[in-house]
C-alpha cells in the first residue's frame, strides 16, 4: 500500500500532465469558442486534480472554483455580448507567433536546465525559506494550515495586494460594463411546454447548502484547505446560481448592485483596518501580535479553546480570521459585481454604446 501510494503519485503526475497538454492542444486547435471555453473549464478541473497530487490542496481548491467556475461563467457572459463568428485561422499569420513561441520555449528550457531536479527536498527552493515556514509556524502562528499562516500572516501584505487586485478588477468591470441588469434584456427562445422544474427545485435546495459550505470553508481555513478567497468565490456562486435559474432581476432585487459594490470596498477597509489597528497598538502594519491592546490581551485566559501552549497566538488567530473575513467580503462581492456586469448588459450594436 505504501510504496503504491508513491508510485501512484508519480504515475498520476505524468498522466495528468499529459492530459493537460492534450486539452491545451485541443483549445489551440478548436475553432468553436464554446468548445474552447468548455475545454478551459475541463483544463482547470484537470489541473486542480494535478495540484492535489502535488500537495497543493489550497491551490487546487482555488483553481477549481476560479478556473472552472467564475472564469467559465465570465467567458460565457462576454461571448454572449460579443456574438462572435467562428474563430478564423490564417496560417500565414501564425508563422511569426510560432517562431516567437519557439524562441521563448527554448529560453525556458535553458532556464529549467539550471534548476534542481523535480521533487528534490534539498533544492534551494525547498530548503531555505519554504522549510523555515514549516518549522516556525507552530510557534509563530499556531495554526495547522501552514499555507494559510503564510498567506494571511507572514505574507499578509501580498494578500492585501491580492484583495486590492480583485477590487480593482471589480472597479474596472463596473467602469466598463455598468452595474446591473438593463430593462431591455433579450428574450430567450423558449419552445411551448418547455420548462426546467427539476433545476428550479434543485437550485432552491442547493443555494442554502452552498452558503453554508462557504462559511465552513472560511472558518475551517485555519485547520484544512480553504480560506477567505475560496470561501468568497463559493459564496458568490450562490447568487450566480440564483440568477442563472431564477433570473437576474430576481437576484438584484434580493442583493442590489450598489450594496454589493459597497461590500467590496468594505472588505478592503476591513483588511487594511486590521493593519491600522495593529499599528495603533504600537506594532507594525498587519502585526497581529499587537492586534489587541496590552490590557485586553492580559484578559484573555490562558488555555482558551483548550490550547494552553499557544495562548500567545490569540492575536494571530483573530487577525487571520478578520483578514480572511475581509478577503471574503471583497472577493464574493466583486465576483458578483463582475457577474452582474456581464450578465446584466444588453447586447448593443455599433454606435449605441453606453
Amino acid at each position, binding site marked *: 500500500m505504501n510504496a503504491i501510494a*508513491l508510485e501512484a503519485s508519480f504515475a498520476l503526475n505524468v498522466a495528468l*500532465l499529459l492530459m493537460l*497538454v492534450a486539452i*491545451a492542444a485541443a*483549445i489551440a486547435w478548436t475553432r468553436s469558442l464554446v468548445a*474552447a471555453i468548455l475545454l478551459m473549464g475541463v*483544463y482547470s478541473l484537470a489541473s486542480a486534480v*494535478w495540484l492535489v497530487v*502535488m*500537495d*497543493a490542496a489550497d491551490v487546487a481548491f482555488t*483553481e477549481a472554483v*476560479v*478556473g472552472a467556475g467564475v*472564469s467559465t461563467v465570465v*467567458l460565457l457572459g*462576454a461571448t454572449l455580448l460579443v456574438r462572435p463568428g467562428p*474563430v478564423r485561422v490564417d496560417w500565414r*499569420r501564425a508563422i*511569426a*507567433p510560432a517562431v*516567437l*513561441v519557439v524562441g521563448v*520555449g527554448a529560453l525556458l528550457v535553458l532556464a*529549467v*536546465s539550471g534548476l534542481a*531536479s*523535480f*521533487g528534490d*527536498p*534539498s*533544492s534551494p527552493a*525547498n530548503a531555505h525559506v519554504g*522549510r523555515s515556514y*514549516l518549522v516556525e509556524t*507552530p510557534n509563530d502562528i499556531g495554526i*495547522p*494550515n*501552514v*499555507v494559510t499562516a*503564510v*498567506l494571511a500572516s507572514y*505574507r499578509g501584505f*501580498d*494578500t492585501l*495586494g*491580492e484583495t486590492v*487586485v*480583485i477590487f480593482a*478588477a471589480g472597479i*474596472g*468591470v463596473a467602469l*466598463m460594463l455598468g452595474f446591473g441588469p438593463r430593462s431591455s434584456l433579450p428574450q430567450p427562445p423558449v419552445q411551448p411546454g418547455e420548462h426546467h422544474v427539476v433545476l428550479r427545485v434543485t437550485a432552491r435546495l442547493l443555494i442554502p447548502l452552498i452558503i453554508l459550505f462557504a462559511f465552513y470553508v472560511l472558518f475551517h481555513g485555519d485547520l*484544512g484547505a480553504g480560506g477567505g*478567497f475560496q470561501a468568497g468565490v463559493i459564496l458568490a456562486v450562490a447568487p450566480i446560481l440564483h440568477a442563472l435559474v431564477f433570473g437576474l432581476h430576481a437576484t438584484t432585487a434580493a442583493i442590489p448592485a450598489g450594496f454589493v459594490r459597497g461590500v467590496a470596498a468594505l472588505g478592503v477597509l476591513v483588511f487594511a483596518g486590521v493593519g491600522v489597528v495593529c499599528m495603533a497598538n504600537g506594532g507594525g502594519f498587519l502585526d497581529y501580535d499587537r492586534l489587541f491592546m496590552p490590557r485586553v490581551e492580559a484578559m484573555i485566559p490562558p488555555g482558551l479553546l483548550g490550547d494552553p501552549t499557544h495562548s500567545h497566538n490569540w492575536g494571530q488567530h483573530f487577525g487571520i480570521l478578520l483578514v480572511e473575513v475581509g478577503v471574503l467580503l471583497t472577493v464574493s462581492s466583486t465576483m458578483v459585481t*463582475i457577474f452582474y*456586469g*456581464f450578465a446584466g448588459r444588453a447586447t448593443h450594436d*455599433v454606435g*449605441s454604446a453606453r
Partner: protein
Amino acid sequence: MNFVVTHFNYLAVIVLMMTGLYVLFATGNLIKRMIGLALFQTSTALLYISLGKVAGGTAAIKIYPDSPEAQALAAQLDPAYVAQFGVSGVVYSNPLPHVLILTAIVVGVATLAVGLSIAVRIREAYGTIEADEIEAVRAREPGE
C-alpha cells in the same frame, strides 16, 4: 534523457506555456486571445507548484506528530530521509509556492474579467472582435 526524466514536469509545463502564448499571438479573436492568456498564466502557476513539490511529501497542513496519520505517512518513506527532510517526523511539500500561486490565480481572474469587459466594449464600438477588422476600421478613421 536523464534530464527529461528528472525535469519532466518542467518540460511539460513549458509545452503548456508555449501553447498558451501561441493561442494568444496567433488568433485575432479577442475572446480566444483572452483564453490563451489565461492558459499562459495558469501554466506559469504550474511551474511554481512543480518547484515546491518534495518527493514523498504531503500537503503543508500540519499533522499532529504522533497521530496514526503521521505514522502511516512516515512509514511510506525511508526513516533517514524523514529524519533529514521532515519536520517533526512528517515530510511536507513547500508551502511558499502555493501561497504565491494563490495570489497569481487571483490576478489571473482579475485580468480575465477586465480584459473581457474591454473586449465587450470593443464589440459595441467597432462591431467586431477580430483584431484585423478593428485595425481596418481604425485605419479609416481621421487622425491616423
